[in-house]
């Protein structure tokens, strides 16, 4: 059985009074339910032109599916950031060098793309998507 594990550690020496902050959490990526074995992984690098929106698409029909997305804004110019959102709702700003990891999901529509838009200037990003299942698109016919 394929097993993908993700681990996050978050540390700080000056956030908590009198002690260091040290969070460690690890989990095996699961399909909906408690089954392991992600079936598709997609990785890539892209450059977004300023004010240009791109989407990381979900497979059609996977409402309430299990999908994980990692995105890192690899831009070095710290005035530039990437807006990220889902299904036409902007959620947050990913600054230069910042990363995010989220089990991306939408309950009401299969059109639940993660959307990215560069602000201030062009921005590069790397990403990885893990999907629990993948349906190949229908052939266009001969």
């Amino acid at each position, binding site marked *: *059985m*394929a*097993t*993908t*594990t*993700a*681990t*996050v*550690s*978050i*540390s*700080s*020496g*000056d*956030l*908590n009074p009198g002690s260091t*902050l040290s*969070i460690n*959490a690890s*989990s*095996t*990526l*699961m399909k*909906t*339910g*408690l089954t392991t*074995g*992600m*079936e598709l*992984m997609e990785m890539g690098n892209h450059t977004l032109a300023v004010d240009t929106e791109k989407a990381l698409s979900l497979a059609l029909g996977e409402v*309430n599916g*299990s999908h994980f997305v*990692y995105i*890192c804004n690899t831009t070095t110019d710290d005035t530039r950031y990437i807006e*990220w959102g*889902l*299904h036409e*709702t*902007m*959620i*947050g*700003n*990913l*600054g230069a*060098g*910042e*990363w*995010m*990891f*989220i*089990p*991306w*999901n*939408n*309950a*009401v529509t299969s059109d639940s793309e993660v959307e990215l838009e560069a602000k201030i200037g062009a921005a590069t990003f790397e990403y*990885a998507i893990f999907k629990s299942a993948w349906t190949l698109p229908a052939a266009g016919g001969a």
Partner: protein
Amino acid sequence: MALVPTLTIKDSTTFSDEISFSVTHSLTTGTPSQGLTKATITTADNQELVDNGVSGVFYFYAKNHDANNFVILQTTASEQYARLSPGEFCFFPINDGNGLEARADTASIILEYAYWAKG
């Protein structure tokens, strides 16, 4: 104040090539912040964890401590964008105006969470 989050992903069984990567970045944080907290999230209502009326960009961390049930994360306008299965975690930035709500689906769960304002 500095916060250093690191993500590591490993998989040696899915593909012929092992997946193993790690990313880290030092973040400057300000106020307000919410230190590590455990809260019971119920199925009865959407529970607001980050107030949409507080200005700023927030780095949000959460982990579902339940063994069997998942929890939904959404904006305060009820736009769902994440579903944390048992034992899973997330870390991502959210903007002011969006807020963050959690709602258990099948039964109450214990959610560990924290957030820090971008400095």
